[in-house]
């Protein structure tokens, strides 16, 4: 029977950031500056606020960009803060973000990275 190997990563967090259309680039750049490997960006449509504000709702774009980034537990607060500040989420209408725990993450892990990780233990 051929031997297959799955590397599972633990201590992983998922940061999701829902932003007003057009803000993703800046936030991604900030995330990369603090050590994020990569991100998934998708388009989405938001509802709620827009309908509850009456006429002022037209100023809120229905189109959203959703950034999903997988980070280590140690990185998480740093990346979270950097993204929050870059997206200026402390102003109304910009977006929302959250961190979630991931139990186990599996992907391709390069040989040398794997060796250095196991050496440390």
């Amino acid at each position: 029977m051929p031997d297959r190997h799955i590397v599972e990563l633990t201590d992983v967090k998922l940061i999701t950031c829902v932003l007003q259309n057009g803000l993703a680039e800046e936030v991604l750049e900030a995330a990369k500056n603090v050590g994020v490997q990569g991100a998934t960006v998708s388009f989405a449509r938001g509802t709620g606020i827009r309908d509850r504000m009456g006429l002022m709702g037209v100023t809120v774009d229905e189109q959203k960009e959703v950034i999903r980034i997988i980070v280590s537990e140690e990185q998480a607060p740093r990346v979270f803060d950097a993204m929050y500040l870059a997206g200026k989420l402390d102003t109304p209408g910009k977006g929302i973000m959250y961190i979630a725990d991931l139990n186990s993450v599996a992907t391709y892990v390069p040989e040398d990275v794997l060796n250095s990780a196991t050496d440390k233990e």
Partner: protein
Amino acid sequence: MRYGTFLSRYKIRHTKISYNDLTPKPDSERIESLRPARIKVSLRYALGLLRPYLQTRFMEQVKAVVPLALYATLFQIFVLQYPVQAATTLLVGLLAVIVGLAAFMEGLNSGLMPFGNVIGSNLPQKASMPVVLIIIGMLGVGVTFAEPAIGALQAFGSSVDVKQAPYLFEVLNNWTVPLVLIVGAGVGLAAIFGTLRFVYGWSLKPLIFFALAPSALLTIYFWTVPDLKSVLGLAWDCGAVTTGPVTVPLVLAMGIGIANSAGKGGSTLSGFGIVTLASLFPVTAVLLLTLFVFFQITPAEIIANANAASASAGSVVSMWDQTPAVEIVLGVRAILPLVIFLFLVLFFILKVKLSNKLVTIYGLVLCVVGMCIFNLGLTYGLGAIGTQTGQSLPAAFIQLPIIESSPIFSKEIGIALVIGFALILGFGATLAEPALNALGLTVQKLTNGAFKKSMLMYSVASGVSIGISLGVAKLVLNLDLATILLPLYGLGVVLTIFSSEEFVNVAWDSAGVTTGPVTVPLVLAMGLGLGSAVSAVEGFGILSLASICPIIAVLSMGIIIQINQSRNSSKQNAELKEIENA
């Protein structure tokens, strides 16, 4: 800003609050208590939201309008040495164009587009196919009236000399409503065929030939009749005028919605084709209308009527014929029929309620207001700049009374300079058109990167610039439009036969996309001004040439790409064979 900079400059403070404390709790006395309340927006909060909202929309139009206007005026001042006339009015007019377009586009997105989407996705379930097609056809007429650039056609009608081109004058001045109606009918027919194409997956090639044949035959006939010849430019220009920012998205939204609910959507090519047909059918329609007028009235009668009209016009000018009232009436008349028609379809055929009435009404009001402001700007801003530049351009090579030092250059250099001016104008105006960027992205996806976005944008832009300069050359050198247009379309047809379906779709649609609400009035006014300055019979025809040239450019580019790909694959095959043999 880097995170490190934040760290060195600010102290970041985290406050934790339990979300439990914020969410609504069940209250037996108030049943509605769980539903989130309406948000009250304070003034400061509102300003914070409004500023970026207004800014992005305003800047979008500034980018489209200012460079073009600047280029035309600077050329006029420095090369033609003709100072800008009525500069303050021009500036206010341009501002009106920018504000009007920004308001109109926003109104279109938040008011009219939801209608189109709701109707497109619901109509096929509630009505039979013939009813759907009739509604789509009527919508074509409505959107044509609402197209901002169509106002430009009507605005420039009075500048035609009745003695030289009686039928052109008659159609533009006394048949304006039938003219727009028949152009609309052409667009409606195009929308019907385009939708049928979506649903049944027809190829675009035979449709193009089928749409081109009658207009080509009529053009040849008109060409042989001296009185009718002058209408050709207008007819072919109408095709370019119709495919603007209202028609394209609204008709597309409905067509795609119908194709999706018929289960035939999802093809990468669905969405293309309607624009092509909507720029071809109106040509035939306008030619037919002129033919009808031709059998109704003789040139002598038209001239007599025009003289009588100009004699009586001086005495009674009603309040409604003066600016700004006339622009406002035009604006309301453009949008209202479309809105009423959409409402009727929504309430009596679909019986669907709109999700957000307040926003829809806001959008519709914005549409009407924007259209009125845009019409004002058209008269005082874009149209005036175009006319001024057009009128002073010939000073480069002939003696003009308005410019003392004219002719500024020798005849050959002057004409070359004017054509060069047109080349750059066309190139810049096209690259600034936001619709082209969107088309480029779609095409890149469609061809899996074989046809790059920049490649499409540059081939369309060079096509348009060559087209506009050909049109200017036609006016300056007094060439015959039909003798340029027919061979070019012939070339387009030949290239179409040899191209693959994807490139045919992209190429023919790119022509309609390039002629937006800023380019059309500017180029039309410039052509008419230039035409009157060099005493040409009529100044139309530039836009029609600016439509066919990018088609040829994109088709040739597509064929080059096809040849390259097949050469590459045959090379690879040969290499594989060699390896096998070895």
